[in-house]
Structures are given as structure tokens and as C-alpha cells.
């Protein structure tokens, strides 16, 4: 569990890396944004281009628009996009999380209906987990979807759903049966059509000034019964497996990468000794995290479920994303910062509180690791 096996990126992944870089060069007008954060930069035209290249849902089967490629190849595409500061948030959740969920638990009809649009970079998903009174304690969700005729009647409120005001669908965790002694029972995941079902979506301004996350209110929203993903009542198992997918990717340690780039540029070719050391310190963390993340991609490729390993990458990676700007700013103390550095720094610092909150807080992750160590 604490051993991350060696995994080498195969030759085809390196070929693909060159193709991604060519593509990024041809899109240089869009790049770079001042941060590498996967939740900012909603750009449907860019996502559609990625889809046309076959770089969204790329590990999925051909019949659903996927390309049957390896997790290593997906890893390379994602890290190249993030390092370049590309605008990826429109398709990110659908590609990383909602698509794989549908692939694993969805009905044949759902897969055929939703997956091809995702792979084209045209269909975007949001996460529907948190609620006003449900954060880390996910099993406490109160949004209900009770049977009503041929469908389900949804009532309640979802919170912090990134880009729900821009995206097309949400996978929402809801109660399909009243709460009982077994708090993990009676939960289900349902697909919500954010544009047409009648949910009220209200963007919430964040402290960085952006409007990315939302409150979504359901008042007697009727959805057809074929919107349930997997078996009704199986929601807890599904949502926990969904969370483990999302924890080990390069977005968990590259969010602050643009600060590093601007930092290296700012010190120039003749850095002071402490500036070299700062760059080396950041590199040592980054290179090690990257190897761990690639190792997890290798485990996924072998069909394993590395939930604890993924939690370890996220724990270390999120801490590093917060450490990087701190190291860089003090190493540059006393020299006038470049405009590029100032902007990357401002962006990243203002976004940084979210790094250790989203996708499971630091505290939840340490609990996952502790369970893996046999302490719970």
C-alpha cells in the first residue's frame, strides 16, 4: 500500500506527448493562463478541439466514442494540459469522473446517450455531492428523489457544484429511501439535466472573484426513472468508488505549476544560491509526486483499485501545491517581481484554500489513509 511500484510511460505515450505539445503550440493565443487550476478556465471551443483529437474519454471503449487508450496516455495528456495552463474545466469532471462512473454502473442506454457527447468535448458534467448541511459527512445528504408515477420527484439543495451554471448535466447523490439506521443505505445517484429539468442554478462568487461554483435548488423537479445510475440504493458504493478515481491525477499537484514557471523565469540564468535551492526543493517534491501519480496510473491500467495510494498522492500533492508559492515568494524577496510572477502568484494564492478542500478535505484523506493503515 505504501509501495508505489515502478511504472514507465510507454513509447506511445511519449509520442502522444509530442502531439499534445504541437496542439498546444497551435493554440498559443489561449495560453498560458496564469494558473494551472483545473476548475478555472471554462472554454467549450477548446474542449471541443480536444474532443476532436480523441483526448477526452480516451481510455473508454470505441463504441462510446472512446479511443481504447491506456491510463498512461491519459496521464500524459492531462499533465501536458495542466502544465501549459490550458483551459480544461469544461470537460474535466465528465472526463475524469462522471464518464467512468457511467461506464462502470450506467445502463446501456445511458452509456449510449451520454458518453459520445462527452468524448466530443460537447457535453459537460458537474458533481452533485455537497449540500448546505453536508460536507465531509457525505452520507448525511438530505436531497430526496422519491418515486412518483413513472419517475422520481427531486427535492433539496446541492452546493459547491463547479460550473453547474455552464454545464449540461449533474450526477447527484440523493436519498431514494428515507434515512434509516444504516445511513449508507437508501442512497442513489441520479442524472440531472441542468438545462431542462427545472433545477434552479445560482452561481456563488468565490474569494478569488470568480463565479465557478453554485447552489442548485430542486423544488419538485420530476425526472424520468431511466435517470437512476446503477441500482437504486447502491449510491454509497458508487459514490465512494467515484471519489477514489479522482484523487491521484496530476491536477492534485500541478495547480500551482505556473508559479514555478514564472519563478524560474524571474531568477534568470544567474540565480542566487538560495534561489537555486528553492527551485531544487520544489523540483524534488514535484518529481516524486509525479512518479507516484504515474505509478497509480499503472495500477489503474492493471485493473487494480488503488484507493489508499490515490489518497496518499492527493494528501502530499495538495500540501505541495500550497508549499510551492510559499517557497517561491520568499526566494524572490527583495527583487522586483515580474508581472508574470505577480499574476501567477495572485491567482494561485487566492485559489489555494480550495486545494485541500475539493475532492475530499485533507482531514478526510488522512482518515482514508489511517483506515488503510488498519487504524479504523
Amino acid at each position: 500500500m505504501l509501495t508505489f511500484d515502478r511504472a514507465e510511460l510507454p513509447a506511445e505515450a511519449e509520442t502522444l506527448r509530442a502531439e499534445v505539445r504541437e496542439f498546444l503550440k497551435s493554440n498559443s493565443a489561449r495560453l498560458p493562463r496564469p494558473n494551472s487550476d483545473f476548475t478555472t478556465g471554462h472554454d467549450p471551443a477548446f474542449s471541443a478541439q480536444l474532443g476532436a483529437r480523441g483526448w477526452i474519454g480516451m481510455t473508454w471503449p470505441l463504441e462510446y466514442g472512446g479511443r481504447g487508450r491506456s491510463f498512461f496516455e491519459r496521464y500524459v495528456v492531462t499533465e501536458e494540459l495542466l502544465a501549459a495552463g490550458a483551459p480544461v474545466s469544461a470537460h474535466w469532471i465528465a472526463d475524469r469522473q462522471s464518464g467512468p462512473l457511467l461506464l462502470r454502473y450506467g445502463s446501456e442506454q445511458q452509456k449510449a446517450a451520454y458518453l459520445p457527447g462527452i468524448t466530443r468535448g460537447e457535453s459537460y458534467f458537474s458533481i452533485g455531492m455537497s449540500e448546505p448541511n453536508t460536507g465531509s459527512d457525505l452520507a448525511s445528504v438530505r436531497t430526496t428523489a422519491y418515486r412518483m408515477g413513472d419517475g422520481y420527484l427531486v427535492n433539496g439543495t446541492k452546493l459547491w457544484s463547479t460550473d453547474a451554471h455552464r454545464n449540461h448535466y449533474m450526477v447527484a447523490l440523493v436519498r431514494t429511501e428515507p434515512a434509516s439506521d444504516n445511513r449508507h443505505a437508501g442512497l442513489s445517484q441520479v442524472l440531472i439535466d441542468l438545462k431542462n429539468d427545472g433545477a434552479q442554478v445560482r452561481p456563488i462568487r468565490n474569494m478569488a472573484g470568480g463565479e465557478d461554483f453554485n447552489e442548485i435548488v430542486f423544488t419538485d423537479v420530476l425526472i424520468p426513472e431511466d435517470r437512476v445510475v446503477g441500482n437504486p440504493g447502491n449510491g454509497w458504493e458508487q459514490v465512494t468508488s467515484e471519489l477514489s478515481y479522482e484523487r491521484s491525477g496530476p491536477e492534485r499537484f500541478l495547480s500551482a505549476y505556473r508559479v514555478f514557471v514564472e519563478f524560474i523565469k524571474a531568477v534568470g540564468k544567474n540565480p542566487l544560491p538560495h534561489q537555486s535551492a528553492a527551485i531544487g526543493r520544489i523540483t524534488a517534491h514535484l518529481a516524486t509526486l509525479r512518479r507516484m501519480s504515474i505509478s497509480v496510473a499503472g495500477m489503474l491500467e492493471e485493473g487494480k483499485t488503488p484507493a489508499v495510494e490515490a489518497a496518499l498522492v492527493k494528501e502530499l500533492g495538495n500540501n505541495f501545491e500550497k508549499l510551492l508559492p510559499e517557497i517561491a515568494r520568499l526566494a524572490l524577496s527583495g527583487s522586483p517581481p515580474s508581472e508574470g510572477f505577480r499574476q501567477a502568484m495572485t491567482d494561485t494564492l487566492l485559489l489555494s484554500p480550495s486545494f485541500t478542500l475539493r475532492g475530499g478535505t485533507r482531514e478526510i484523506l488522512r482518515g482514508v489513509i489511517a483506515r488503510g493503515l488498519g487504524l479504523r
Partner: protein
Amino acid sequence: MNDTTNLIAESAEKMFSDLVNKAVLDKAEEGVFADEIWRAICANGFDQLGVTGSGTGLADLFHVLVVAGKHALPLPLAEACLVNRWLGSNEVFGSIGCVEASQIVDVPWGRQASVIIGIAPEGLVRNKGKNARAGVNLAGEARDSVELDAQESVACIDDPFALLTLSRVCLMAGAMQTVLDLTLRFAQEREQFGRPISKFQVIQHQLAVIAAEFAASLKAADAAVEALGTDRFITDLAIAKARIGEAVGVVNELAHQIHGAMGYTHEHQLHHFTRRLWAWREEYGDEIYWQTRLGAIVVEQGGDGAWDYLATSR
């Protein structure tokens, strides 16, 4: 690791867990050379790891060093094997230190050695292992010094300083594993407020942090061993020594905090491992030394080129 390397590491695990214990470690710290263990090492050919013609390579030596670190083996296995590798001999107990002015310093068990090799910027020098002055590092490990004598130079295709650095990297990865294991066990056995302290969330979180730092350290060490013989070796070595050195501070702090006063006693075995971690992170370049070397390599690539260098590391 291939099958042979695994077998070698497994038999090292068996040998060291049979022979190394608290009493042996205490004796070594009092200045008693662990002769019985050294003879067992030689009898099993473990003094020949990485020596041409032995059927083993450098990678085998470094995998065994992780096991040695795990048991706090009170002998300089890396030094002994590398001397045999460089001199092509096997009748000696040799050790290695760094040349400083007119001395070779920080030589593990130099007082016991029949030959001592000194690492200098311009190459290796060979000294007779006589009249070494006894000294210790903060872990109580023998670190002796000798005056340079005839200064016979030794030809060597390796980067000696780098290989010795890698030895400390591997030893640290192993010792850190034991610190984690001891701390996990203690937290599950020690009861306060009517339950094992491992049931308290704050303790669980601290153990999770130790585990994460160890996992990163082990990965960094393994990557450096994997890079042996490639043009990325120095980069991966710098990454490993810098990363693990940083982990040591975190891991030792939390491990001792969780162990409470018990772990602060001489009677407890924890300090044999935590003190070695503190000592080894200083030897052959501390974090700043390797961070600076690594930083210089990255600076060469420039801000836009750094990613390519990092991403195509292998």
C-alpha cells in the same frame, strides 16, 4: 526489482533480523565492532554485492541497503562492498571517507579497516587503515579519521560521492520504514483515556502524515536506484536525497511525539532509527546541497523548458 534482486533482499532480511537487535546496537555504540555479523555477511557473500564477477550488480547492493537501514545494521556495508568493487579484492574490511585537508574524515569503522579510500574532488586515494582516530556521528555510529599517508590513487569508473549519497538515501528509506512500523505498533498498544491512542483522530492523522512521507521517500529512493547507470542518475539522486532529507524532519518529530516519554528513553529502540535518520541526512550532502545542485540543472532549462526536462525524465 527482478527475481534475483528480490531473493538477495529476502535473504538479507532474514540474516539481519536474525542477527541485529537492540543489544548488538548498544554494543556497537560502545565501540564494539559487530564481528559476528560481519563474518556472517562475508560467509554469505554480502560483502561482494556490486563487485565485478560476483554475479550481482550495484542495484542489488542498494536494495540490500534499504534492508540494512530497516534493521539499523551497525556495519558500513556500502563502504565495504564499494571498496571491494573498486579494488577488486575480497580479503579486507575496507571503508571510505572524504578527504578534508590532510585527512580522510567521517570514515565508518575506520579503526577496524585494513584499507581506507578517501574521496577527493580530483579522484580517489587509498590509505592504509592504520592509526585511525575514533569518532562518532550523532547516532553513535563509528565515524573515524586518519591522516593521509602514501596517497596511492585508485582508478574508478563510478561517481564515488554519488554512490555514497545513494547509500544514505537507501539506508534512510529503510530506517524510516521501521520508524513508521514502530510508531504504528506503539500507538495501537498504548492505552490512555481507556482506549489505544491510535483511536484518537489526531494520532491517526499524524500516523497518516508519517506514512505519506515514508511512501514519498521510498518512491524517491527507488527511482534513484532505478536511474543507476543512466544520464539522469545525478538528477534522480538529488531529488531523492533532498526529498528524503525533508521527510526525516517531519517523520522523526511526529514519531517521537506519538511515542511520548517511552520513546525518549535509551531503553527503547526507536532512537536507534531516528538518530540514524538525523545523522544520514547530513552525510554526503544535506538538503540544501542537493537542492542547489538540482536547482542549477533546472535553471539551465529555463522557465519554459523546465517542464520538458521534468516530464521526459524517463
